[in-house]
């Protein structure tokens, strides 16, 4: 009896350990004559071969799609997603696409890298800040010309050979948002004219002084993560410079000194500890729901947030430094690319074509607060007629070649962490001399890139 009990326990332990492992799904090989698991053993001649595609990205999972069919969504963002699934069926009825939600940011990057390493990656991968790294590592297949031709170049990222390998269905750039209601309350013009950094600083200082600790002018946030770098990027680019790229940082320059000094001075117009908090949430709550900050640098989606929270908002392009010219930074992009290891590349590109379908694109453009990739929608003046707040940013988006954040040759994430914490956040948390901050960071980044 004792022996049987011990054997039973041992078997249970082994089986439960084995049950924790999952076998990778074998890719469907459509070139072979052998039937797949989706097909019957004998295939009638006139039935086309069905292809299974695994797509991590913008579309509904099987469960979501079934639920949406039963109860059609009223939320525009969800409706746009549902249309992607429907368009897959329209473009290529022989595709069985499984959209999967692997999260966002780091968890998504980890899972995708693990799947790439396993040798059985999904057919389509997606993401934002790490997709340029994937592109440079040559793991994405170049996009077909018809996709490249029908989208605006700002929505594409290229590989090391300059070939477009991933496309985002939508995105944004930064605008300067302001709260007209608070300006009215303080007896100031509710649609101020702000052309230069100096104009902005003067008005923001005035608001903070009049606000008496209850209303703040606002400045350039320096969150100690990518949210900080993204918002600072347009301002340094206005001066004709950038963070650097590849193996060359360009921090130790007079332009960066001027910008950091400006950021430090403007930080006095944000409640202490908010503009450089690791959590962005309190800053946005203070602009949106609490309505205590007048000016905010944010992407187009803030238009929708303002509407939802009854903020009487205005927008304008970011002010320029003396002698500066217009510049911005891409943000909120969701790049999708087909992996080189995909066994069904053409079918995967059909799924990307479905992601870029005109119905979803129009809904996103008019309701979600993003600019969209399809030129036929983006460049049609009627698309954004109902969104006057977007107009200033839209004109700039169409007129300029705008890039995302630069990619470093090695230790990309570590370099950005250094910039976010020991340059940007340090400038507003400490009173360390700006040239010391910049020179130390420059030396440290050069060492990391060696």
């Amino acid at each position, binding site marked *: 009896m004792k022996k049987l009990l011990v054997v039973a326990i041992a078997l249970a*332990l082994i089986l439960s350990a084995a049950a924790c492992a999952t076998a990778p799904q074998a890719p469907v090989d459509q070139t072979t004559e052998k039937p797949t698991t989706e097909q019957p053993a004998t295939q009638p001649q006139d039935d086309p071969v069905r292809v299974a595609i695994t797509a991590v990205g913008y579309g509904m999972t099987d469960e979501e799609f079934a639920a949406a069919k039963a109860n059609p969504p009223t939320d525009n963002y969800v409706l746009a997603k549902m249309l992607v699934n429907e368009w897959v069926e329209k473009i290529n009825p022989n595709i069985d696409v499984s959209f999967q939600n692997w999260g966002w940011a780091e968890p998504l990057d980890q899972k995708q890298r693990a799947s790439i390493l396993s040798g059985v990656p999904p057919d389509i991968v997606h993401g934002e800040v790490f997709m340029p790294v994937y592109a440079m590592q040559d793991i994405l297949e170049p996009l077909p010309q018809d996709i490249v031709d029908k989208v605006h170049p700002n929505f594409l990222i290229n590989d090391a050979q300059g070939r477009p390998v991933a496309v985002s269905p939508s995105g944004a750039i930064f605008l300067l948002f302001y709260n007209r209601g608070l300006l009215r309350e303080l007896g100031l013009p509710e649609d101020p004219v702000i052309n230069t950094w100096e104009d902005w600083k003067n008005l923001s200082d005035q608001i903070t002084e009049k606000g008496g600790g209850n209303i703040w002018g606002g400045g350039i946030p320096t969150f100690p993560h990518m949210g900080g770098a993204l918002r600072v990027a347009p301002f340094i680019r206005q001066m004709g410079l950038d963070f650097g790229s590849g193996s060359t940082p360009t921090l130790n320059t007079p332009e960066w000194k001027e910008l950091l000094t400006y950021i430090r001075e403007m930080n006095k117009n944000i*409640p202490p500890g908010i503009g450089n908090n690791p959590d962005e949430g309190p800053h946005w709550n203070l602009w949106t729901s609490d309505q205590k900050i007048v000016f905010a640098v944010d992407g187009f989606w803030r238009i929708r947030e303002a509407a939802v929270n009854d903020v009487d908002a205005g927008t304008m392009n970011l002010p320029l430094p003396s002698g500066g010219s217009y510049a911005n930074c891409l943000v909120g992009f969701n790049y999708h690319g087909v992996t080189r290891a995909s066994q069904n590349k053409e079918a995967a590109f059909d799924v990307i074509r479905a992601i870029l379908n005109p119905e979803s694109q129009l809904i996103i453009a008019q309701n979600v607060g993003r600019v969209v990739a399809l030129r036929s929608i983006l460049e049609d003046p009627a698309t954004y007629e109902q969104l006057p707040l977007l107009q200033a940013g839209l004109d700039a988006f169409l007129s300029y070649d705008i890039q995302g954040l630069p990619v470093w040759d090695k230790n990309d*994430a570590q370099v950005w962490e250094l910039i976010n914490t020991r340059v940007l956040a340090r400038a507003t948390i400490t009173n360390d001399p700006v040239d010391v901050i910049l020179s130390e960071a420059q030396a440290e980044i050069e060492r990391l890139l060696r």
Partner: protein
Amino acid sequence: MSTQNVVMSRVHKKGRFLTERDRRDNRLALLNIVPIFIWYLLFNAVPIGIGVYLAFSEWNALTAAPRFIGLRNFENFFRSPDYIRPLFRQLYIGGMAVATNFVLSFFLGLMLNVPIMMKGFFRVCDYMPSVTAVSTTTAVFVALLMPFDGGLNSMLQSFGMSPVIWTHSTYWMIFWIVMYTVWRSMGPSAILWLSGLQSIDPQLYEAARVDGASKLQEVIHVTIPGLRFTAAFIVLTGIIGMMQMFDAVMFISAGGPVGTTDVIAFRIFRDGARSFNLGMAGASSVIVGVITLVFSVIFLNLWLNKNEKEAA
């Protein structure tokens, strides 16, 4: 050789003079051990081996295979302030947490040993923090520490004091990290102290009272010596925990302000899971593992006397 010595040597030879029952018992014992051994091999030994291999490689988990680079990662570790400083911070922030926990949990254990009504309820309350999710409880801490309209600052302002920008102060961030760690660790440590206290022979206390010892003298001469082994266990597990502490840092301070509370365990996490600099993550893990082992061995050798070492 005498007959007795021959018999004794035969008894000690493997498989000789073992009855069928002995062999059956041995097989049963092996059957018990094999599953956990397989589990340990798959989920501990193999990952440790891979980590050690990666320590000598350069790899970002996108290229086909790691590239062997010898000792470059270790060289980088000892030359870069980005690794040496976090290592020292791990030791002193962790050390403060271990020392504070050691003292506070001891007094808590003494209090839990007092026979009062609902002592079971109080013991459960003390243990609860250790079973809660770190992400949830640190979110509460962070909400309290919000510089604008946070709970603590609102309370300070209600007393007419100025709010404190906790996230801008290295001192305060270390303080809250240590406080949080102690708050979570105190319960289990107090339970260990409690079990140690209850294992001390009551006759020793009677003998001390007969000899005219005061309560304080009982604690010094009976209680504390009787708790040496418990104390060793608490400190040893504290050292191991201290060298792995990163979740409190990640959620409360994120290594800030400006990296001044960044600890090596958080650095390893970021290298591995965010930067995909797996070689440096592996090398740093090897170094931290060796340091932990050395500390543990030194501590045990210093703390325990010969008899206790043998018992351990």
